[in-house]
């Protein structure tokens, strides 16, 4: 059966709600399922568990924290990735800090899902950010699934986890469809990456929709005798350091492709972790958005600041030539 990434997320929500009456959804326009993430769930679970909120992101994010303190497992849908900037305080400074600040008296199992993170093509500067690195920096568990099976498995695990977890579902991945037996859908543990394609010459670390790009590039380069290993960490924080270093021990070359701005982004962290632990045959490279990028509207400009296949190919050649 074909299962799309977006449908996999929807299925994960439905299964989580069926499994645990403490799970409920809140967000903007989720009863009509404007993003399709929550399609069918109002009819199946009723309005008490699918809560349409006014445009009050800060209050309803804290509202979810309060509900979690009272024993619920809220899942918030944010329609727009940049809304995470508006509620950064409520996630990083409230939900995330309660466990430590109370000396372990409580837990805040809230899941924040962004269906359509990163560039959405034509949505311009304030709707096209991909701020997963920010959440990793403050220590909030953060995942960016690449495939329908991982979208299902990581969202289920995020909801079951007793801490706040941010789930980025990149716009560029929502339409991916895989042929899957639904019975094989299982929770995917947080913090465990996967080798999406084995190879021996260079490790390409890619997340979310960029995994598809990395796999395409690997296919293309296999035609000229370059063997690319694609490592998908799946979880941004905590990073699967063992999985990363195991891959690098084989290939001794590294390129990271990351839809973050360059400075202090996810790619910078991967390079730093790798530099602390691994030996290389050539200096590693990263392919990212430029420093401080704001996505311009015009399509050619939008594309010009996003990491893409051409940049990745250039970077791979660079690390191989310098060996």
């Amino acid at each position, binding site marked *: 059966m074909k299962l799309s990434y977006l449908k996999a997320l929807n299925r994960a929500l439905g299964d989580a709600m069926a499994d645990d009456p403490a799970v409920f959804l809140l967000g903007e326009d989720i009863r009509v399922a404007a993003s399709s993430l929550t399609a069918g769930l109002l009819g199946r679970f009723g309005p008490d568990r699918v809560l349409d909120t006014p445009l009050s992101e*800060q209050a*309803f994010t804290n509202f979810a924290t309060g509900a979690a303190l*009272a024993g619920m497992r809220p899942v918030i849908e944010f329609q727009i990735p940049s809304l995470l900037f508006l509620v950064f305080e409520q996630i990083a400074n409230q939900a995330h800090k309660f*466990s430590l600040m*109370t000396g*372990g008296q409580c837990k805040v199992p809230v899941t924040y899902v962004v269906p359509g993170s990163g560039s959405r093509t034509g949505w311009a500067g304030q709707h096209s950010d991909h701020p997963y690195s920010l959440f990793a920096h403050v220590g909030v568990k953060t995942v960016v699934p690449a495939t329908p099976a991982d979208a299902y498995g990581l969202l289920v695990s995020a909801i079951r*986890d007793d801490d706040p977890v941010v789930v980025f579902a990149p716009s560029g991945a929502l339409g991916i469809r895989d042929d899957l037996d639904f019975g094989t859908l299982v929770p995917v543990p947080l913090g465990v990456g996967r080798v999406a394609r084995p190879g021996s010459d260079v490790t390409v670390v890619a997340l979310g929709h960029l995994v598809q790009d990395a796999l395409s590039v690997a296919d293309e380069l296999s035609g000229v005798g370059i063997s690319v290993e694609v490592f998908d960490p799946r979880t941004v924080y905590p990073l699967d350091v063992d999985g990363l270093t195991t891959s690098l021990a084989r290939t001794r070359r590294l390129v990271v492709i990351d839809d973050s701005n360059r400075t202090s982004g996810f790619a910078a962290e991967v390079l730093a972790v790798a530099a602390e632990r691994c030996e290389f045959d050539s200096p590693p490279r990263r392919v990212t958005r430029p420093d401080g990028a704001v996505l311009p509207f015009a399509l050619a400009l939008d594309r010009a600041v996003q990491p893409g296949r051409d940049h990745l190919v250039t970077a791979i050649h660079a690390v191989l030539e310098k060996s």
Partner: protein
Amino acid sequence: MTRDLYRTVRLIRRFEERAIEFVRSGEIVGGIHPYIGQEAVAAGVCAALRPSDVITSTHRGHGHVLARGADPARLLAELMGRESGLNKGRGGSMHAADFGLGILGANAIVGAAGSIATGAAWAHRRQGRDTVAATFFGDGAMNEGMLLEAFNLAALWRVPVIFVCENNGYATTMPVASAVAGSITGRARAFGIPAFTVDGQDPEKVLAATASGVDRARAGKGPTFLECTTYRFDAHHTFEHRTRLTYRSTEEVSAGWSRDPVEIQGARVAAAERAAVDAEVEALLDAAAGSALGSAHPDPAAALEYLYASPEVMR
């Protein structure tokens, strides 16, 4: 109840006076926001609640936590950063919490806890309980959009929450008249929330107003807003004891002391009974100080213990 309210305001007053001494002696690092002058609000509100109810508190939170029944020894130990503290020394003055008593934490971000309390109260009701939440905040919080958003959610969804605004006249040094356009109760009424102004120096008046709000909330009629007019007799924060900010006159502060909640409630208690309460409070606080000072300091190796509730995925 008359005696109990007196004991609560007296306990808070003496706790805070002793805590200020511990700030001066260096046993409490980082200072505190003394609750002195506002004790009647915490005492009256918490006296109207059941053990199964919940509260959220503020940066000026010791009074709320004590009025809700927290152990003064463990609160003092928390202020001193000791292992026996309410939060095992991980929270300090601005984050004291005791979930066993329904104290969902003091919150150091002005206006943040109103929406947390609203969510908690909503969730309790969803789970079939008749819990009411009381959430404390100051006049300064009335300008935080997040709190105004919470009023809207609570009113729309008829959440059983009591919004308790302690209007002590100042947001740090900013006078309320310079900060709040319109009126404080008018803002709550704009959301359709019944809003009342209460004499926040009189614990019995605060108790009566809170009790009717709690009844209303438990009957499923939604939130109530109380503006408790009060006055902070001491500093915004103990740093003021050194910097001597001049945002209010000594005459104004003296006038504030003329309506001391400890004296207002104390006058309702027979002299002998009052003396007995005072002695019991002193003995309790002597023991609390001994206990807190004798408690272990946390092990630095455990600095990030409790960071995650599900730590097994971390490495």
